[in-house]
């Protein structure tokens, strides 16, 4: 019985690999690449301004295209200006979720249209010394104007390239850090820590282009 099962299993594997390797040649349709805009993703935090930062990260799942409360089925997460990936280890801040997947990230220079392929060598995971998406004004995805406008502005030409928790790929362009993505944001009157971003998700495993 046991050998039968093993043989059956080997045949199944052979059939499957044969089938799937054929499928590429046979133009078996891939799942379409998803392009979406997410508006008003709330990424509030407590503390800051000299105090320790805390508060739950807003987790996002590219597969569903929605935020999630799940401890494991998330790809990236937002809190204030920090963006983390579900891969690597925690920096150890208060309320920071444990990493359960193989997520990673890097920041590419270009536009959503010009960043067309993933460069594997560039991927970095979060670690106990810093996030893959580096923080601070001018270091990562945003710049902070300081006085007199105190605005957080996404740096144009910064495309965040992600490896999802299960090894697929996505690219993200952050458009706004203020509620309803006002065309003339005002740091004093508009609610901040509210993300609007475009993303492209490649749902097919092993495909490194979008």
């Amino acid at each position, binding site marked *: 019985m046991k050998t039968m099962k093993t043989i059956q299993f080997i045949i199944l594997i052979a059939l499957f690999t044969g089938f799937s390797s054929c499928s590429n040649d046979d133009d078996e349709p891939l799942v379409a690449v998803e392009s979406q805009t997410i508006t008003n993703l709330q990424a509030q935090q407590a503390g800051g301004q000299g105090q320790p930062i805390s508060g739950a990260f807003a987790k996002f799942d590219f597969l569903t295209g929605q935020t999630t409360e799940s401890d494991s089925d998330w790809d990236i997460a937002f809190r204030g200006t920090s963006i983390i990936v579900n891969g690597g280890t925690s920096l150890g801040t208060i309320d920071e979720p444990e990493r359960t997947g193989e997520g990673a990230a890097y920041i590419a*220079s270009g536009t959503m249209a010009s960043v067309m392929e993933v460069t594997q060598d560039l991927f970095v995971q979060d670690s106990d010394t810093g996030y893959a998406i580096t923080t601070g*004004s001018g*270091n990562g995805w945003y*710049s902070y104007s300081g006085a007199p406008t105190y605005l957080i*502005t996404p740096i*144009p*030409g910064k495309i965040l390239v992600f490896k999802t928790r299960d090894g697929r790929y996505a690219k993200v362009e952050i*458009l706004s850090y203020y509620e309803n993505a006002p065309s003339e944001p005002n740091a004093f009157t508009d609610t901040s820590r509210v993300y609007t971003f475009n993303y492209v998700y490649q749902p097919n495993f092993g495909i490194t282009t979008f």
Partner: protein
Amino acid sequence: MYSFSQGIQVDSINPVKLEQVFVTATRTNRFISTLPLPVHIISKRDIEQANSVRLNDILNEQTGLITVNDYGGGEGIQMQGLDSQYTLILVDGMPLVGRLAGTLDIKRLTTANIKKIEVVKGASSSLYGSDAMGGVINIITENPEKGFNVKLNYRLETFSTEDMSAVLNYKKAKFGWRAFLNKYSSNGFDLNPKTELKTVDPFVNYTFNLKTEYAFSKQSNFYLSLKYFNQNQDYNASAILRGESSINEWSSNLKFTREFNVKLSAYFEFYATVFKTDNYLINSENGTFFDSNYFDQQLIRPELRVQYKFNEVNELIGGIGYSHESLDRTNFSVQPEFNAPYVYLQYDSNLTNDINMIIGARFDSHNKYRSQFSPKAAVRYSLNKKWSLKGSVGYGFKAPDFRQLFFDFTNSTVGYTVLGFNVANSALAQLQSQGEIATLIISPSDLKNTLSPENSISTNIGVDYKLSPKLNFKVNFFRNNINDLIDTRVIANKTNGQNVFSYYNVNKVYTSGFEIDGKWKPLNQLKITGGYQLLFAKDKEAEAAFEKGDVYARKDPVSPAFQLKKEDYFGLFNRSRHMVNLKLYYMLPKWKAFANVRLTYRSKYGLLDSNGNNYLDVYDDFVEAYSILDFSINKTFYTNYSLNIGIDNLFNFTDPQNISNIPGRIIYAKLNINL
């Protein structure tokens, strides 16, 4: 002496005009017409005709000069596209101190006592050492004049602004003195009445100057000038936090002159100055103390200068001096002292009747940064009586200031920290031991070397054309290549999510362009002068980034980004590509009156990066171009009296959001009495 015979011939056509003497370019009395450098004189008459009150009023009307507002409230001068930190301001040849955040506020100076203002453009560190990168502005005040006389004037203008001066002067034979007192006060103004704070709070200031001269003999002279400036201004941080800020400035300048013979003269000068500010804030609701800060800078500088004339056309000047500077202020963990001996030598020669040449160099030694050697060479060639060419190349530097070396400041409400280069390592170690540092971005060894002085090579090439005393113009092309510009960077992340900043040498910047100045007298009663400056001021690394295609922008803050092209880079902040001034003077002899209309124009400029790519590109928000028109009539009556009436900023231009130093239309009247 020099080839001024040519100048006199030209001038003899118009006997009214006397040959002008210029001191700042060579530190000797030198006729301006043969100088090989781009220089400009603002005469007492220019200042009087423009009815200027403070130094910024008159400098703003000059070609290529603009005063730029600074967050600290000071108004500094921009020259050849270089910031106010890179222009040396002298009063009677002695440097002013008190650059609070790098900017020297020139509103501090009244124009009432000025005899003339000399402007040298281009790096002049070969004579003046640090700060003379963009150029030098030397304000020459009145000296005792023969006889006994009294001058009084009073001016009243919009916003209850009052300006009054009194001069008491006596000079006979060997001894002379002159006392000057000025009071300037204002209720300030408010460009934005909706906000709780005024744009400029009420203030009052006093300037006092006493000069004495004594001639021991025909060959030796003694001179002492004492100056005191005091200002008190309301200082309000919010509706509740209220207080006062005060400035006190003293200076004394002692000079001995000795002419040994026709060829050799020597000068000894001893200059000492103190600049102090004190600010405090009180919570007006409960009367408790909130905050205070102070700034106390001192400079002492003895200098010995020797002039040797080989003959009529060759002259050598050399100087040796010692500069001692100290600063005590809030947010400094140390009380730093700068000690800098220096020596300079300059040779001025007429190689032929048509060629004048100046070569010189200065060496500055310093206890806190690398020593500096600053050479300069300049040549002027007269093609004929109408045309002449001049060219000069010089080295300029600006020493790192006390703040860039010794600042130790943590913002109490936001939590970020700024550290001077020389204290960064120890302060960082202390923050680390207190557990406030999350990550170090640079390694401590990056802070081991010394911060280099910012330095530049400046080139000026010009053409002078003098058709007649009625029509002349000059063009000057300039290029300043600046290295080691000091900027701030993040050196560590703090556990509170904020950053630690420090200073470092990074940028290579250039400013280049040209300026044209012209004068035309179509009628005996009418004089028209005009000037234009074209300026490109750019960061070389930014230029390279645009060229490589590394810079992106959005048309709308929420639209997708696109790549910028090389020509989309606008340049440095706060620089206008075009600046124009046009002045029309009309004399009404029947009325014993002068009328004038003066126009200044400044093209658009950027104050900040509004689209988040850290560069100023053509898709950013700009401060719109503007022009200001001034008008005035000055009338003399009974010989000793004159009345000035005028309107500055006739069309009431304001830009409350971006330009806080233009208050709108100002109407004034001024009475002058000379006894």
